[in-house]
């Protein structure tokens, strides 16, 4: 049965892929000659069809999700890569999640949790009659177990928030009362996944069978994992929504590359392709029967340049003014860089005009703080560099006191779009007399930790190119990336992401104020002021806004990319294939 259905689906794809090409143009001229007649005769046709609503979900079928990366584990307790969480979200659910609009929504909780007056007690009402895929009922004990698992010795999950929990009580099976030792304001983000108490012994967490085949309350469960090749998910027989999921199975297929994925999406061999870039959109739009869905992640992410204010010799100064960067410590040089980069050209040519140029650290969502786009002005750039004492040398490269204005730019190897962006930047900056030299490294080397002598943590770079942006609340991003307390140094063992070594007391104060101010309006204003000041000081240059994008065959109904981390699996129980 499954086989026939699959063959049918495949056939449908093939037909769909072929038919538009065959019927594209010939009809056009005929209709222009005699427009009225055919319209009249054609009109009754739809009603001749049997009275089945084409929008009634069709049961059965298989959706193949292609991904260039293989998940390492499906346990939310151990996941270390985005793909791990994206795939385990097919299976695992939490009490609260982020919905398609980026708002918190209850899943296994009856409603969003409420905090007590003093903020120390948070109460969850749990949904009743929910069963895990192994048949066990979901109760408050599972919430307790999840907490214990997260803070256990072998856990690989973040304990922030959980480490503030004093105890979890279960007055009855469907109420969980969480008591905090101190106030944890973003409590809403806790319990985004639930691990059933039957998962295993916490002292053997690393070797649980659960890690390869999680037991969850979601619509799917793992039936097969062929290492390096594919993971097959089948219906969870105990799923709470009657008659769902509509599909029989979802197969996660590991691909050699994103580009092979695009090809397979075109031929219909895969139904969904996870994680595209903006540059892939023109190709996707050319494919018949293929569409894409995108969302801004969290509060918006930017592809950006990180400019190093400190010396690039690995000394990692806590105060860059003590050991300044030979060129980038000068605001005029940074301004010249911003003036010398034609962001719109990058967006139009490399990204097919599908995204917006980067303007601010807070581009989207309820914290959005729109800022005017930066100006592209070669003359202003040149004037600023002249003023800063960098004069054009014999070879067209500027120099000062015998030092050439030669800057290294680094990003992750093997990312074609970033490599293209860099090469375009090289040409643009050559115009204003800056010699930009590309020095790319594998992503793990670029993002390496302080202890393993990571170049970014230790400040051994001039300019970095990568993507980052605000998450669920602007606090952690702004504090982590722009607050002077978060400059990685020997004292704080490299904690923090303020790689520019940017220090501005006003910005520090604004970020601190906003973190503790209960007035959301005032917080917003403070963040906006900080964003404005950041644009003046230019520790980073925002090139363009990034989206989370997936491509899919248009037969697939109810597919939508969401702004959360589990961007792919939203409503997968409602997916069905239109014949």
């Amino acid at each position, binding site marked *: 049965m499954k086989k026939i259905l699959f063959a049918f689906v495949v056939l449908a794809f093939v037909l769909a892929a072929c038919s538009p090409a065959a019927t594209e143009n010939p009809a056009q001229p005929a209709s222009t000659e005699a427009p009225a007649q055919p319209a009249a005769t054609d009109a009754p046709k739809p009603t001749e069809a049997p009275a089945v609503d084409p929008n009634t979900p069709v049961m059965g079928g298989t959706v193949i999700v292609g991904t260039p990366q293989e998940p390492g584990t499906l346990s939310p307790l151990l996941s270390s890569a985005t793909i791990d969480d994206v795939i385990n979200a097919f299976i695992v659910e939490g009490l609260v999640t982020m919905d398609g609009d980026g708002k918190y929504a209850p899943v296994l909780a009856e409603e969003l949790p409420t905090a007590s007056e003093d903020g120390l007690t948070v109460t969850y009402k749990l949904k009743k009659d929910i069963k895990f895929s192994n048949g066990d009922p979901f109760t408050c004990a599972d919430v307790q177990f999840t907490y214990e698992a997260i803070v256990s010795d072998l856990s690989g999950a973040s304990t922030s928030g959980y480490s503030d929990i004093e105890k979890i009580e279960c007055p009855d099976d469907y109420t969980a009362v969480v008591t905090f030792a101190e106030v944890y304001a973003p409590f809403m983000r806790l319990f985004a996944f639930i691990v059933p108490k039957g998962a295993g012994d916490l002292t053997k967490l690393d070797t649980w069978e659960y890690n390869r085949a999680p037991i969850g309350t979601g619509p799917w469960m793992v039936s097969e994992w062929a290492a390096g090749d594919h993971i097959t998910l089948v219906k969870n027989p105990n799923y709470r929504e009657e008659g769902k999921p509509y599909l029989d199975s979802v197969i996660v297929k590991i691909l*050699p*590359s*994103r*580009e*092979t994925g*695009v*090809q397979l999406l075109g031929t219909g061999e895969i139904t969904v392709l996870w994680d595209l870039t903006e540059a892939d959109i023109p*190709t996707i739009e050319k494919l018949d029967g293929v569409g894409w869905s995108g969302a801004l992640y969290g509060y918006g992410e930017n592809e950006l340049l990180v400019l190093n204010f400190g010396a690039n010799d*690995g000394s990692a100064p806590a105060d860059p003014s003590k050991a300044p960067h030979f060129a980038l410590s000068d605001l005029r040089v940074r301004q010249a860089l911003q003036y010398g980069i034609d962001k719109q*050209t990058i967006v139009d*040519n*490399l990204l097919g005009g599908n995204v917006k140029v980067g303007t601010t650290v807070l581009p989207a969502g309820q914290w959005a703080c729109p800022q005017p786009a930066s100006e592209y002005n070669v003359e202003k750039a040149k004037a600023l560099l002249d003023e800063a004492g960098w004069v054009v040398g014999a070879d067209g490269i500027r120099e000062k006191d015998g030092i050439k204005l030669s800057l*290294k730019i680094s990003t992750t*190897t*093997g990312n*074609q779009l970033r*490599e*293209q962006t*860099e*090469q*375009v930047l*090289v*040409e643009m900056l050559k115009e204003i007399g800056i010699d930009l*030299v*590309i*020095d*790319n*490294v*594998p992503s793990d*080397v670029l993002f*390496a930790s302080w202890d393993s002598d990571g*170049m970014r943590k230790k400040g*051994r770079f001039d300019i970095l190119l990568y993507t980052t942006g605000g998450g669920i609340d602007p606090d952690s991003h702004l504090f982590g990336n722009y607050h002077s307390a978060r400059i990685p140094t020997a004292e704080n063992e490299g904690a923090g992401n303020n790689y520019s070594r940017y220090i501005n007391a006003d910005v520090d104060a604004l970020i601190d104020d906003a973190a503790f101010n209960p007035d959301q309006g005032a917080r917003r204003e403070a963040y906006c002021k900080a964003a404005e000041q950041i644009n003046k000081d230019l520790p980073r240059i925002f090139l363009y806004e990034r989206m989370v994008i997936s491509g899919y065959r248009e037969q697939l109904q109810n597919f939508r990319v969401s702004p959360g981390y589990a961007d792919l699996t939203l409503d997968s129980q409602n997916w069905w294939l239109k014949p």
Partner: protein
Amino acid sequence: MRISTISEFSGFRTLREESLFRFFWLRFRKHSMALVGTTIITIIIFMVAFAPLLTPYDAFKQDLKHRLQAPSAEHWMGTDDLGRDLWTRILYGGRISLSVGLTAMAISIIFGSLIGLTSGYYGGWVDSILMRITEIFLSIPRLFVLIAMGMFLRSLDLPSLQAGSFLPISIVIGALSWMGTARLVRASTLELRDREFVQASRALGAHDARTLFQHIFPNVASPIIVSATLGLAGAIISESGLSYLGFGVQLPTPTWGNMLSNTQNQMLTAPWTAIFPGLMIFIVVIAINYLGDGLRDALDPRHIVGKK
């Protein structure tokens, strides 16, 4: 075998040198494919050296309005992902690719010869140790370790080296390909060590280094030349492979290898970007291999040269 000293004084080519060369040439030219190979290499070296005369374009100048254009009269190999003329990049890329090949080959030959000579000449525990080291290097899965070394090298911050430098990759390739030469040279040295002219030189009180370089080295030159040629071909292939995997020379400096690094992304829409750089590697490598084959036939007296 004292050819060089005599000719230094006389300023003429000796009869012996002349006849040696003649002998070589007579044998070499019988290998018609080797001649073809030599011609092709010569042409390519000239093309690459005089690149500016052969193209009106700049290898670095981008034209974002004309990205990934199919081959046409204007760009007869088409354009790449940033609108640069592919033919021009192939010409300039050839400079780097050949330089990587030559540098890596030189490193492996110098290193291999030194180890081989020392090992074969001194024998005993020196030989044992050096040959164990050689064995160790022969026993590591080369490509796998190349990747690990590539990761390592990329993590180093070498201020003396420009980011676009081809030295790191040449060193990595050279450092992992000297073992064949070392074994070859050692075997020949072992054979020669006990020959009369070497013993005579030692008996006359010549310094070890003098004996090695004046008497032994010229006699092991033939196998070295052959393995150098084949090593060059191998190094060019290795460069392309490493670049394909992302550990090659940094962009925008073109090499035939790094021009291929992103092509898997484009091979559906712009297959020419994948075809031409690979074709160049193929042509050069096959030409060098034929040259090496001809050299072996001509230089190795044990090798039977075909009669036409």
